[in-house]
């Protein structure tokens, strides 16, 4: 395996009965990377994370954490945020951090306070966990994940159930952690989340990794031959373009045509013949959605 990889999986495969949940996942995360695991619900992200955390067992394949094959000892260096928070409902947020934070070493009260402060839970730290909203539960999970200053942070849908303000804060927090040099694995089905915080990306579809690499590079590679047109009569423009043999669709208040830049003149002429004049035309910028759509062969992000 590559020297210095924090996390590496080799042909990681998992079946649930007849369902192939993960099919030969090969992934390598180096120190300092913010690695996004992107895919729609059911694509195998949580399965991959559950395998990495030793919660379920692979049908085949191997997992290396900090250079060694997965063992409980290595997981002490990992902070995790999962959907099933796991905290005791009858105890306060602070008590939960104290209890779970002291499993391997005596709890550092100062670190508990700092972690609560970091996620903005100081004021509600003494309230019972069961009284917390979904977003607060998620924040406490994040506080717990960062409590011991772990080398690797694994976030599984960390902004689930959070309000827009909370989502922005959590994204900012992940970015901060990345700037501090933390290695992060972020599983999400939210394109914007992954696009904003990740440096590297793997796209999963039906348990298979269909693309992976540096996010910036992937975006550059995904130059889709699409032109955006601003015209007055959208429906009529679509019909004219179809008749002329173009694949076109309406997005927001624009017509998006599958065509390369050399066809711009022809498109302008075809539309003008029908009395439709283009107010604006530009090549469509590549974004994560286009990377995803190209990788998965879908026409729309689910």
């Amino acid at each position, binding site marked *: 395996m590559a020297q210095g990889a924090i996390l590496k999986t080799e042909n990681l495969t998992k079946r649930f009965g007849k369902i192939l949940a993960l099919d030969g996942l090969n992934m390598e995360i180096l120190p300092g990377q913010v690695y996004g695991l992107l895919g729609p619900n059911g694509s195998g992200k949580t399965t991959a994370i559950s395998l990495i955390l030793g*919660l*379920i067992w692979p049908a085949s394949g191997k997992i290396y954490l900090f250079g060694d094959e997965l063992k409980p000892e290595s997981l002490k260096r990992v902070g995790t945020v999962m959907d099933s928070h*796991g905290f005791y409902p*009858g105890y306060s947020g602070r008590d939960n951090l104290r209890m779970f934070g*002291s*499993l391997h070493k*005596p709890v550092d009260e100062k670190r508990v306070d700092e972690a609560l402060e970091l996620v903005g839970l100081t004021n509600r730290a003494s309230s019972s966990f069961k009284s917390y909203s979904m977003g607060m539960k998620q924040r406490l999970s994040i506080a717990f994940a960062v409590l011991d200053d772990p080398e690797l942070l694994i976030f599984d849908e960390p902004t689930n159930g959070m309000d827009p303000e909370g989502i922005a804060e959590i994204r900012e927090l992940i970015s901060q952690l990345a700037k501090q040099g933390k290695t992060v694995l972020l599983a999400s089905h939210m394109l914007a989340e992954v696009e904003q915080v990740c440096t590297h990306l793997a796209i999963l579809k039906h348990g298979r990794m269909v693309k992976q690499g540096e996010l910036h590079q992937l975006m550059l590679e995904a130059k889709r031959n699409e032109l955006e047109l601003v015209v007055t009569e959208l429906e009529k423009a679509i019909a004219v373009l179809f008749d002329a043999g173009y694949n076109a669709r309406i997005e927001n208040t624009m017509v998006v045509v599958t065509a390369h830049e050399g066809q711009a003149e022809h498109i302008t002429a075809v539309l003008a013949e029908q009395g439709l004049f283009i107010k604006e035309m530009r090549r469509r910028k590549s974004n994560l959605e286009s990377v995803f759509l190209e990788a998965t062969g879908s026409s729309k992000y689910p």
Partner: protein
Amino acid sequence: MKDSTKNAFLQLSRIEIKKLFRNLTFYFLVVILVLLVAYLSSVPANSYQPRVQGLESQLLVTYDLIERGHPVLLGGAPDWFNPEDYPLIDSSGAVILENAEVYKQINNDNFQSQIDAYTAEEGEYSFSNLINKGIRQVVLFLVIFSLIMAVILFTADYRNGSYRLMVSRGVKRSTIVTSKFMALIVASVIFTSVTAITLFVSIVVTYNNFNAVNPADFSILQAGNIIWVFLLISLVYMAFGSLMAIVLASATSALLGGLMIAFHSVGLFYITPCDQGFLATISPVTLGHNIGSILQAVFDPVAGGVGTSQFVETVIVGGQAEQCFRNLNLALPLTIVYASVFTFLTYLIFNKKELKG
């Protein structure tokens, strides 16, 4: 044991015990256990007063018969008594009052000795015997409550996702199970103590109501026997409950399945191969039968057993009394084997269990 593993074990055990004492179900079970034990252990003693009253009525009827010239002696005549020396009716047909008093006195003595025999050492209503009968009454609830507690303690963390949290934090699965068992041992000691103390107090209160002497026939040995036997029963069924909880990972399923099996198991307490049916045939290797053997050996031994390790119980088969053997040499080891197997399987299955979200 590595320092971090030891720390995780100590910390988790502390958390589990703390959780136990904050668990309302635990207190609910303790209160119900106290009420049931208090009520059920007094049941055998409740028949004492009606039986004494029955004897008193019989005595009064006897007096009446004697006064009317019938020479009735309930419970037989004493050795010194010769009916010819104490004729009840003279030649004129009148009752000889002096001799009638002798008859009455003999009947009264017999009546009194029967009453005394009830509460004398090894008597039907002796303190020791009432304790033993009480044990039979309450042991079912000790079994059920121990099983319920184990299921609740082991399944709560599936529901909360706490097992996932701990395992993802690098806590060994065996450490998690061991800490749970620590809390169960504490719960078991409390259940056992509560059951034994309530049983004792309840019978002391009932016994004192008899206006009889103090429970002198109850020994420290018997108290010790109650403690170890109750503890053993509680622990073995807690181990079984833990196994059910780990296998089924759901409180409802584990409780339903566990209680169904536990009821069958308790039914086997009193079944021997002399009884009919498949369960009776295989009973000597079942947990229930062997716990029944321990209960019988410790609290209700029958004299005249074969050898030092066996004793007999008499069952009615086809209307005829038949002697059945219970092997005491095997009862305790087999029970311990069952407890060990349940515990081992709990560790093994939890180590292999997939903790899905």
